[in-house]
Every structure is written in structure tokens, then in C-alpha cells.
């Protein structure tokens, strides 16, 4: 599904990605983990074509990304910070994104129902709380039926009930055979949903495999300690 080959990216003097090779097959939930500044968001933005790599190649479904924009029709992306144009209303924003994607078969009604957003539909986005914005963000992401879903910190600002609903939503999408890429700092959430994790450390892939493989590699009894042992080893 996603093939990343020898990806390098620097911002000025700051080398963020130092040769990433990653292969993600179709179907399943993959979590990208790593400390702050390890290049998770940069990697995702490279896959989306928002950040242009210095060298290396990315293929989605064997098609190279360079000078191509139509492939984003096959991706649903949840940005990390839910920033929207403030003077649009929620329903206008949803209609606009639908219009831009030329998509008719959507399930926005269902999702608005799920996250109880009806009372906010006619409000301007500038007046919504952080959590409500994140719910709108989730509706915008999940309302299309694309084979690849990329979620950057999806649990940001969500209350426990919405958190639970999000988990069910992710599992339902996985059951449809979709590929889901998640970044998150909430380890319990990652442990619960993901099939495989990719651990980024200082711009390189430190580990890729299942959580049980990580535990046996680091000789730690649980996931949290396994992650902590990688981090303390690298900072020591």
C-alpha cells in the first residue's frame, strides 16, 4: 500500500528524516510512535505531499507521488491541530470539502449523529471548543470511503465517550479491510488498536513489528516499559 524508500528531509539545519525505509501492506492498523520531534508528522506530511522530501521516493499503490495530486482522493487525513477557517459554519465546511472531493456517497449524517454534532452545525468554527473542533475534524476525515486513512493524534481533546466512539469507528473501518496509519502519544490507545507499530527515533526507524515483538526485543513485561526502555537507552 505505502512504500517509502530512503527518505531524507531537513528543515534548514535541522535534519528531521534521515533515510526512512518503510513498507506498509494493505489492511490493518499501523501506529507511528516516537518522542517529540522524531519526525512522525513530517513523515505523514511527506506521504500526503504537504512536505516535499529532499531525496527518496514514496509510492502509494505502486504509483510514485511526485507531481501527482489525484492520489489524495484515496486518502482520508486527520490533521494534528484542528484549524479551520473561522468564519465558516460547520455544515458549510462539510459541504465545501465534499464539493472539493467531488464525492457524493458520504456518511457525514451518520457521523454527525455519532458525535452528537447537530447543535453545532450552524455555528461558526471560530466559536467551537477544541474538543468539538476535533469532532468536526473526525467527521471530515471519516465521511469518505477511502482505502487509506491517516490519523495524526486523533484522540486530542476528546472526552472519554467520544474517545470510545472513535475506537469503535477505527475498528469498524479496519474490518472493512482498510489501511489505517495512526500517530499518538497515548500508549494505552495505541496498544489497544494497533496491529503493528513503527518506532521512529531521531529520524530513523528504530523498530517495526508487533507489540509482542517489541516486548521480547526490549525484554520488558509491558508496552509502556518497552517504550520507556527504548527512550532511556537512546537518551542515556
Amino acid at each position, binding site marked *: 500500500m505505502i512504500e517509502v524508500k530512503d527518505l531524507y528531509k531537513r528543515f534548514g539545519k535541522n535534519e528531521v528524516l534521515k533515510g526512512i525505509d518503510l513498507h506498509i501492506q494493505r489492511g490493518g492498523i499501523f501506529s507511528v510512535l516516537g518522542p517529540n520531534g522524531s519526525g512522525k508528522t513530517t513523515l505523514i506530511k511527506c506521504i500526503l505531499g504537504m512536505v516535499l522530501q529532499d531525496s527518496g521516493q514514496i509510492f502509494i499503490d505502486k504509483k510514485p507521488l511526485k507531481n501527482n495530486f489525484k492520489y489524495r482522493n484515496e486518502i482520508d487525513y486527520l490533521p494534528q491541530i484542528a*484549524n479551520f477557517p473561522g*468564519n465558516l459554519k460547520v455544515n458549510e465546511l462539510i459541504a465545501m470539502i465534499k*464539493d472539493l472531493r467531488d464525492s457524493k456517497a458520504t456518511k457525514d449524517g451518520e457521523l454527525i449523529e455519532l458525535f452528537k454534532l447537530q447543535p453545532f452545525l450552524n455555528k461558526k468554527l471560530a466559536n467551537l471548543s477544541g474538543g468539538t473542533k476535533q469532532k468536526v475534524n473526525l467527521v471530515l476525515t471519516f465521511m469518505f470511503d477511502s482505502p487509506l486513512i491517516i490519523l495524526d493524534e486523533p484522540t486530542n481533546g476528546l472526552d472519554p465517550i467520544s474517545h470510545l466512539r472513535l475506537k469503535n469507528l477505527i475498528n469498524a473501518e479496519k474490518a472493512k479491510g482498510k489501511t489505517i496509519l495512526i500517530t499518538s502519544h497515548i500508549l494505552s490507545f495505541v496498544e489497544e488498536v494497533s496491529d503493528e507499530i513503527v518506532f521512529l527515533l531521531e529520524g530513523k526507524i528504530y523498530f517495526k513489528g508487533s507489540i509482542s515483538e517489541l516486548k521480547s526485543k526490549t525484554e520488558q513485561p509491558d508496552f509502556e516499559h518497552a517504550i520507556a526502555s527504548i527512550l532511556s537507552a537512546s537518551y542515556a
Partner: protein
Amino acid sequence: MLKILKYSFYDLMRSRWSYVYFLFYLLLGVVLLFLNNDLSKAVITLMNVIIILVPLIGTIFGVMYYYNSREFTELLLAQPVKRSSIFLGQYFGVATSLSMSLVIGLGMPFVFYGIFNSSAIWDFSLLLITGAFLTFIFTALAFVIALRNENKIKGFGYAILLWLFMAVIYDGIFLMSLLYFEDYPLDKFSLVATMLNPVDLSRVLILLKLDISALLGYTGAVFQKFFGTNFGLILSSALLALWVLVPTFFIWRIAKKKDF
């Protein structure tokens, strides 16, 4: 691109500033016409206002819009939309809505005053066309500056400096050099120097059309003699168009290579 243009345009049509700008021109038109009671004189006064003000508003609005719509831009970048269409769409959205405020705001009072029955109609249309050109030119330059500068304060600073240079400093340097080199033949120099600055170019274009180029003194005489009025008009228009096209090309090129 048309979809982005549509949304940017709607977005601006709702903003208070478009109306303020529109009302300002409406008021200016009404006041000038009814205090002056002379169409040709009103056109000349308007020219002096437009030549300075339109570039300023175009620059400020362009920079402001770009920085304010960053979120919108990032949202769009993750959608299956071409990069160049996002930025060109936004640019044309801003420039079109500003030009509309200008044309409609000034046009209305003049239409009610009876511009259609007057001989000043061509001068007036030329004034509006140059105003629209200046809007497009300076909004494009503002977008280029904003795309190049992540830092808002710096972006605003450069934009204001650009306006100040084009509208004020350039003329100062031009005049100084005319005085300094007065012993040499300066025809070609003054022609080229005038054409290199869109603000001066628009001024000359309108003055030539108004047939009061004698007022311009030296430059006017040179322009009149060198071009003859029609050829001068076409060349100046072509240059104004070039002033729109070159920054637009830069918007396209910078947008293609930028990280978000």
C-alpha cells in the same frame, strides 16, 4: 482552481473589510462628483487617489489574506487538489473581489451622475481598468512576499516597504537622477524608468489618455513624441499585463516547492 477561487471569493465577500473598501470608494466617488461638478476634474483627482491607494490596499489585503487563511490552505493541501490551483485560486479570489469593490464602488456614483452621456466615459473606464490592473499586480506581489516569509511581521514589513518604494521612493530617486544628470540626454532613461514601475506606468497611461500630458512636462512630451498616443497605450497595457504575469508565475513556482 475555479472551486478554490469561488470559496476564497465567497469568504471575502462576507468579510467586513470588502464592504468598508467598497463603501470608501462609493463615498469618494459621490463626494468628488457633487463637490466638483466636473467629470474630467473628478477623474483626475480620482486618479491621484487610486494610483497611491490601490497598491497599498492590494498589498496589505494580499498579505493579510494569505496569513489569515493558512488553516484553510492546510486543509486544502490534504485534499486532492493541485497545489498551484490552491494558491492561484486564492490569489485570483482576493484580487477579483478587491477589483470589484473598486469598480462597483466608483462606478455606481458615476453611472448615476450620467457618465454614459459624457465624453469622459473612456477616461473613466481607463481609470477603472488601470485600478484593476494595479490591484492584480500588487496582490500578486503581496502573495509572493507572504509565501516567501513564514514570519508575519517580516512579511507585512516587506510588503509595506514594497509599496513605499513603488509609490514614493521610486519617484524620488527618479527625479533626483533627472536633476543630477540633467546635462545628458535623458529621453530613453526616463521612458524606461517610467515603464519599470507599474505605479508610474499607470499614471502616465491615464495622463496620456486625458490629453493633458503637457502637465507632465518632460516625461509627457517624451511619451507623446516617442509613442504617439495609441502605440503608447498598447505598449503600456502590455507592460501592465506583464507585471501581473511575472509575479503570478512566481506564486506558482514558490507554491510548488514549499513545505507546509
